[in-house]
């Protein structure tokens, strides 16, 4: 940072010199570009997302229990419950807040968020699940971006029949409902994690392709690209130095949104029972597993839903904040 401030001082001095020569010097078109400053909503969102990322990395070491470990014999133990309480009280109606304080304050195995339908610790499973859900989604989104950008920019730059074939093929995939397509792929190929990642990646690569191609086409007709053409630059230079840097900001903003879609997609698949398989914890499948608990007043399916919500909404808010600060035109291309 100190480097840049030194530079601005230098150029400031140079500008003063110009000023003295020309009393009515022209004004720059735009003020010097500053780093993006987030609003307080954006800052809170960054904190939430960062917390989840940290949890995804160190989850297994900080979680009180293993994701597959059966802690208690009863399902849907309320938040703060402990095995000691269950030894004394057998009936659901007896698990009152008073009983929890009575039996569990001393206990060394407290279930902060209660137990799930098999008596596993919901809190530990959410922490373990962060790794699975965020990890799979992130890898799948990265992969979708790699495929989508390569083909999309390639189609925009080469044009002609290559563009035609790629675009029509892309549109035909895009016209199929993504969940249906995912169900078919997983049903046919089995629901292992690599298959899940590849399915999600290919499905979401289609929308990345469209954005990358549209951005690429916009940039390809700019004068500076034509100037590079006129200079005699090759295709590789034009793509990597002229097109990609100008597409990076809108694509990065879109990456956040796409990640959200993939998280929801993986969660939906898991919710339908075709995603991540038991006993691995995954937020989507946790919601499904514990749905029946809602009838008994258990929050076991609410907590993972809250986890999905906090992560996806926060990413969305960050994206909104960035695109609002970096000009509306980028945000419009996102859709």
């Amino acid at each position, binding site marked *: 940072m100190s480097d840049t401030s030194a*530079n601005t001082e*230098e*150029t400031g001095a*140079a*500008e003063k*010199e*110009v000023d003295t020569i020309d*009393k*009515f010097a*022209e*004004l*720059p*078109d*735009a*003020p*010097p*570009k*500053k780093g993006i*400053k987030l609003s307080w909503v954006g800052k809170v969102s960054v904190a939430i997302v960062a917390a989840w990322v940290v949890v995804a990395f160190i989850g297994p070491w900080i979680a009180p229990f293993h994701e597959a470990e059966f802690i208690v014999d009863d399902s849907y133990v309320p938040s703060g419950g402990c095995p000691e309480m269950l030894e004394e009280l057998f009936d659901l109606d007896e698990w009152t807040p008073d009983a929890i304080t009575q039996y569990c304050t001393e206990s060394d195995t407290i279930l902060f968020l209660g137990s799930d339908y098999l008596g596993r610790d919901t809190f530990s499973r959410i922490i373990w699940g962060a790794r699975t859900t965020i990890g799979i989604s992130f890898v799948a989104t990265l992969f979708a971006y790699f495929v989508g950008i390569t083909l999309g920019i390639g189609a925009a730059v080469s044009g002609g029949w290559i563009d035609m074939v790629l675009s029509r093929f892309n549109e035909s995939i895009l016209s199929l409902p993504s969940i249906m397509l995912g169900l078919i792929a997983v049903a046919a190929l089995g629901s292992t994690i690599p298959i899940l990642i590849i399915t999600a990646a290919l499905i979401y690569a289609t929308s990345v392709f469209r954005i990358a191609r549209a951005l690429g086409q916009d940039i390809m007709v*700019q*004068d*500076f690209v*034509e*100037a590079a*053409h*006129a*200079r*005699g*630059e090759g295709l590789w230079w034009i793509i990597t*130095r*002229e097109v990609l*840097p*100008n597409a*990076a900001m809108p694509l990065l903003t879109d990456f956040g949104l796409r990640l959200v879609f993939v998280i929801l997609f993986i969660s939906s698949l898991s919710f339908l029972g075709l995603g991540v398989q038991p006993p691995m914890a995954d937020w989507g499948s946790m919601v499904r597993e514990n749905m029946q608990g809602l009838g008994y007043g258990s929050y076991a399916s609410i907590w993972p839903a809250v986890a999905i919500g906090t992560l996806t909404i926060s990413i969305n808010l960050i994206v909104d904040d960035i695109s609002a600060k970096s000009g509306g035109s980028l945000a419009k291309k996102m859709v």
Partner: protein
Amino acid sequence: MALLEVDNLKIQAMKDDGTPVPIVKGVSFEIKAGEVVALIGESGSGKTTISLASLAYTKPGLEFSGGEVRLHGEDLLTMDPLKQRDMRGQRVAYLAQSAAATFNPAITIGEQVTESAVLHGILSQEEATKRAEELYVALELPDPDRLGGRYPHQVSGGQLQRLMAAMALVGKPDLLVLDEPTTALDVTTQIEVLKAFKKVIREQGSAAIYVTHDLAVVAQVADHIVVLYSGEVQEQGPVDQIINHPTHDYTRRLMAAVRPTPTAGMGDDTEHGHGRSEAAIAARGITAGYGGIVDGEPAVTILRDINVEVERGDVVGVIGESGCGKSTLARVMAGLLPSARGEIVLGGKTLAPALKDRDRDELRKVQFVFQMADTALNPRQYIGDILGRPVEFYLGLTGQEKRKRVAELLDMVELPIAFAERFPMELSGGQKQRINLARALAGNPEVLLCDEVTSALDSIVGANVIKLLTALRNKTGVSFVFISHDLSTVGSFADKIVVLYAGRVVEQGPTDQVLSPPYHPYTRLLITSVPELRIGWLEDTMQTREAAAGIARGVEITAVGCPFFNRCPIAIPGTCQLEVPPVRLHGDGHQIACHHTLDEVEESEAGPQQILHGYEKPIMDDDAAKKP
């Protein structure tokens, strides 16, 4: 009492950290009924911001921070929002700069012109349509009965600009705000629009705010002038006083930047001592256009049989109205658009038509300078990298040597070396154009193709760029092809002028000879259309037969005959539209393509100013009207 009083108006923007930045710093002026007040200044002077304030509107990010804007004594800024809405478009109407961007292409003209009056409930649809037709007549628009049923793409740019005035005037506003309404137009179209505006404002009795940076235009239409710089009034007074006796420094500078009338001898007389033997670059029999090429004929022909030579160290100016093919010529020379027929010769060697077949050294020698520096510089690259790449690419310099050359280039275009560490966005328009030039010069080229490099710049900034070009030419000995629609800029800078019309060369030769009689009738029309900084010029010009015959006619690109036929005051019916005119030589390299002998042309110019032959063609561009 004045119709509109702007009293100590202050407008500010908010920075990210909440500190206010003043944009308009206490501006006061007033407009009486039926009066035209011009706000004049360069970009960033706040003239558009102030004009929008008369509608109690600011662009997003700006806010009113003080003062009053009173219409009939009532403050607009503190008015109830609902009343503000009623006031806009009804009592105050706004005309944006670009008519093409204002009209919705999918709705008929009539519907769009009458929309605001009907929406505000001032007139019923029938009354509004009737009033619109009266306005079409007042604005001298062709075919007023049926014009309302047409779509925007079926009329010309000048007509669209006048239709915008009709749109604003339908609701009989008290005040009209015109934001640079003629800036984007060709000189011949500008006259037509100015004349119509002036007439209709006088007839309708509404007052107007006329925003522009062009003092010569202001002299024609305004009663009162307010000179602005950086959000402050520098000088204001009646048009006669400002134009003839300016007192403020800045006004004088604006006056100095007004283009002089193109006349012989206006160019600089420096002899460059170049041997007039070999051409640096030459176009021989070039035919070019867009679409597939069949038998040397493109699907859409833009240029037809062009022969132009650029001698070493010379500046050749290419002029013509928009759409005449002048940019296409430069693109063909650069290889960006391969020609269908003919060849480009560089220093005695024929170049491949397409860019990809030329070798790196050939590419280095011919450099293209793009019109818009805003889009020609990659916004994500530092200036140092933008200039460094061609240095590395063409000259093979790296590291310290490359940096040295970049510094040299920045120095050559008179910018501080520290600019290498800036992004294009942190530069002003003129500075960006300098970088654009420096990039083209990086590889020591032999020919620079400059495509309208000053057109997008303010007059003072543009004049400085021309000064720089002259200095560069003298220093480096590079040849220029300088493309512009502005005859006076070309005249002050070029050694030789090529006049293009509808894709053909109608006249070319040394600057002094092209700008003195005998003229091709089209060159004469262009010369007489350049606004002069003189009150009453517009009225005088409209009396000439060139104006009567040649303004506001459609341009047709034809394969046979003289393309200028339908706008020419001395056209010979039966000959001119059928046969390609012969090229007549006059002195040293001066060529005029005309069926008349040069004596006849000169005689007709000296003769009485009347239309010798009235070629009656409907003003509406028929071809355009036929389009689906």
